[in-house]
Each structure stands twice: as C-alpha cells, then as structure tokens.
C-alpha cells in the first residue's frame, strides 16, 4: 500500500462519514429518549432497545431471521455445491441443458413467481410456517454457477488420485473439492445469507402470523403503525432498525474484501 497525503486521508474520512451520516445518526438517535430527541437534548438510554426487544417482540423477530437466513444459507449452499460438482466434473446427457437452465434463472425476475409460489405453498399448507419462508429461497442459480466455475479451476489430477485409492464421488467432493473451494463457498454463503436476511417481499406475502415475522417485516410494521397518529417515536424505530442492520454489518466488516472480490468476479467475468 502506498503512503499518502494526510490531508487527503482526512478528507476521505470526512466524505465517508458524511455519506454514512444518516445511518450513523440513526444509531446515535436510538440511544436517546423520545422526549430528549424532540427537545434536542443529549442523553444516553438503553430504554428503546428494551422496549423494542420486550414489548415489540424484536427478540423473536431476530431469532426468526437467524433461523430463516441460516437454514436458507446451509441448504442453498449444499444444493448448489452438489450440482456445481456434477456440472464441473461430469459430462452427461442433459447436463448442458440443465446447466443452461440454472444460469438462465439469473435472468428471471422473482416477481413472476410471487403469486404462483404463494398458491403452491397455500396448497401444501405451508403458508405461515418456517418452511414456507425457506423453501422458495433455496435454489440459487448464481451460487451454483459461481461454484462450478471455481471448481473447474481445481486440477482434475487430484480427483483421479483419490478415485485410484477407491474414493467414492461423495468422498471426493467432501474431502477434496469442498476444502479447496472454501473461499468460493464462504463468499457465496455470505452472499446468500445477506440477500435472505434483507429479503422483504416474500416474507411480506408468505407470513401473516406475528410470531413468524422476520426483522424486516417487524421493522416495517413498527414504522407503519405510527404514521398518521401524531409524532413518530423515532428513537424506538431507530433502535429496531439498528437491531436489523447490526448482524449483517458486523459480518460484512469481518469479510468485506472477500465479498467485494466475489461481486466483481461475478459481474465482469
């Protein structure tokens, strides 16, 4: 990394803070009482978090979001990895067609399946269940495509050596391909997790029971209860918003570089 002008560095810091100021200020606001916020006084309180978590059920929403995003990630990665392995290593009748169909899903907007998926799950009695939230999100064409490209870069000699020693396909996948694809798998896992964590329209239509709200739905409802009825309790809303942002934010800061690299690879290659 090159040394740099301290003035430029300071200016960059300011620009970054200014850009993020709405979110930074919302986090700051979440530690103020409503009265103090409206009066323009500065205080510190955890009261908004206590109310969001206790009275407004955000602990439950947080758990729901973790369950749904976690399961979608694990299942989605598993399914994508299995298929990617077959597409990367086997030539079989219909293989190219199926791979094409997988990649083509990237072009298909999700709204076309909104009403049909709602009907499918209603028929299966899975609306208002975790399964209903999770099942439609499991297939991920991009993850499969990305992993397949990555796996093709792994020398085939490694598989062949293992097959000589009598390994099964699953063993080769699990012992050789998966460990060597770790960077690709983890960046895809993160990508799926974030996308699912922030998913809004599907939980909005698939869930009516409050006990199954994800954070996104809970936050939108909490904000929507208020408008029209006098002053909004902004500090409370911002505490809920901070709870919604924080887990992904921390995860992102931990692995930012991998994710950005993954995105560039997917877009310009």
């Amino acid at each position, binding site marked *: 990394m090159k040394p740099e002008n301290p003035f430029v560095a300071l200016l960059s810091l300011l620009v*970054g803070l200014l850009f993020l100021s*709405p979110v930074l200020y919302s986090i700051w606001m979440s530690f103020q009482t409503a009265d103090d916020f409206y009066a323009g006084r500065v205080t510190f309180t955890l009261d908004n978090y206590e109310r969001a978590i206790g009275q407004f059920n955000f602990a439950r929403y947080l758990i729901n979001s973790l369950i749904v995003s976690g399961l979608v990630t694990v299942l989605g990665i598993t399914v*994508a990895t299995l298929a990617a392995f*077959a597409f990367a290593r086997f030539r*079989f009748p219909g293989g190219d067609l199926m791979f094409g169909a997988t990649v083509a899903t990237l*072009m298909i907007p999700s709204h076309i399946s909104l009403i049909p998926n709602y009907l499918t799950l209603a028929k299966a009695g899975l609306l208002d269940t975790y399964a209903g939230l999770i099942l439609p999100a499991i297939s991920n064409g991009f993850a499969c495509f990305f992993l397949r490209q990555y796996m093709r870069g792994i020398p085939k000699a490694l598989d062949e050596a293992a097959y000589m020693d009598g390994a099964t396909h699953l063993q080769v996948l699990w012992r050789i391909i998966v460990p060597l694809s770790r960077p690709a798998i983890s960046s895809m896992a993160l990508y799926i997790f974030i996308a699912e964590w922030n998913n809004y329209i599907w939980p909005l239509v698939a869930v009516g029971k409050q006990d199954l709200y994800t*954070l996104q739905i809970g936050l939108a409802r909490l*904000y929507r209860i208020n408008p029209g009825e006098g002053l909004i309790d902004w500090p409370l809303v911002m505490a809920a918003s901070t709870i919604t942002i924080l887990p992904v934010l921390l995860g992102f800061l931990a692995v930012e570089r991998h994710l950005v690299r993954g995105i560039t690879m997917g877009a*310009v290659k």
Partner: protein
Amino acid sequence: MLRKLTPYFFVAPLMIFIAVFTYVPILTSLNLSVRQWNFLTPDMPFVGLHNYEELFASAEFWNSLKVTVLFAVLSVPLRLGAALFIASRLIRETLSSRLLRGAFFLPSVTSTVSIAVVFSWVFATDYGMVNAILHLVGLGRPQWLQDPYLALWVLIIVNTWRQLGYDIVIYIAGLQAIPQELYDAAAVDGGQRFHVFRRVTLPLVMPTTYFLLIIAVIEAFQVFTIVNVMTRGGPAGATDMLVNLLYEIGFELFDIGRGSALAVILFVLLVGLALLKSRIIGSKVHYEA
C-alpha cells in the same frame, strides 16, 4: 448403470427446487393471466386476454409504467455519473481509498427496510435531518414524502445511495483494466485532464457503463421495498412503481388474473433487458491490459 446415473443424483435437488419455484411458476403465471380468480371462488373461468385488455385500458397501469420509466431515466444517469466520478478518485490502492470504498459499499449489504425507515426520518417534514439543515440556512420545510413531485426524487436518492457502492466497485474494476500506457501516451501528447478523461477513460469504460446501465434499468423495474415502506405508491400514485402495483393488485385486491397478467408483462420486459445484458457481456466487457 448406477454409475451413469451418478451426476443426476447430484443435480437433482437443485433441479427440483428450480423447477418447482422458478420454471413452473412462469407457466402458472401465464395460465392464471388468462383466467379470472380471487383466491376464493372454486373455479377460475378462462377469460382470454381480458386481463391484459383491462390493464392496458386502466390509467393506473400507464401511470405505473410512466413512474417506473421516469424513475429509471432520472436515476440511471445520477447513479452512473456519481459512481464514475467517485470511482475515478478511488482507483489507487491506498488505505483511505480502501476505507472509502468500504463506506460506499456498506449500504449495498444493509437491510433495505432499515434504509427506507432511516431515510423516512431523513426526509421527514418535522424533525427530519434534511429539513433541519434547510431550516438552519433559512430555507423552507418541504413535505418531501407528501409532495407528488418530490416523493419520487426522494426514492431516487435513496435508491442511488443504496446502489452506488456496487456501481463504484464495478467501475473501479473497469478503470483498473485500462492500460497505463494509454494514459502515458496521452500525457506525452500534453493532454489536459478533462480531455484525457473524455478521449481515453470514457470510451474505454464504455462496456462497463453499458453493463451498469442495464443493471440499473433492470433494478429500477424491480424497485419495491422502498416504495412499500416509504410511500405505499403515494401521494396520489406519484410513486406507484410496477412491482408495487403488482403487489396491490395481487395481494390487496386479490385479483389474481390481472396481477398475473401484470407479472407476465414485467417478465417479458425484464427478460428482454437481461438478454441485452448478456449480449453485452458476451461481446466484450474488458479491454485486455
């Protein structure tokens, strides 16, 4: 025999999920779009192209299309212009440019609902951040989200704020792929900064620009969350973008036929755009260094 079947076992789970939740729904939507149904009645009579005709005859569809196109036309140059400007300042691998890239990228991974809620406060008429600043410098207090002219702009700003980081990352990759020799040659010829930008940088990032342009247009046609949280399509339909209309028709009015017809129209539009995009990627995104 079994050995020949092996690859099919590996792809089967993904294929089943894709079939059930992506491909069959396209056919289901097509089928529902020529029927009349509201979730409740036992049968769904075939009505031909009636739902499409009804949509094309309704003011709300044309309003929605207009608003969506307006959103795209206004937000795309804003996004790309800002992103290219910022990216050209952040191509060097210094600590501060890395951190700034991170800062700009952060909103892309942040919950859209949170962003919508936070910006509802930023643009709130009373106690909002923007109006507090305007008040400080002696300007008025516009009712941003209640004003039919301003509300769409607010959504455009929020969407730009969220997507900018992605555009910047892609532009940086595009800019870094431009061979240094070209800049050196331009410098030897005594090119002015603006000239070099116009004659060297701009043409050479054109493929990246096309790519981002189409992505941005595709995204504009799919905007929903910020509309649903911030304006509900209002005031007076001023922000009633296409997916919001689809949600209203399908899940508030339960007019499944008309909702499906709208979904099919959107599908055709978006797949067309996506095909255009893949042609561009196929042709050449990068100039090899």
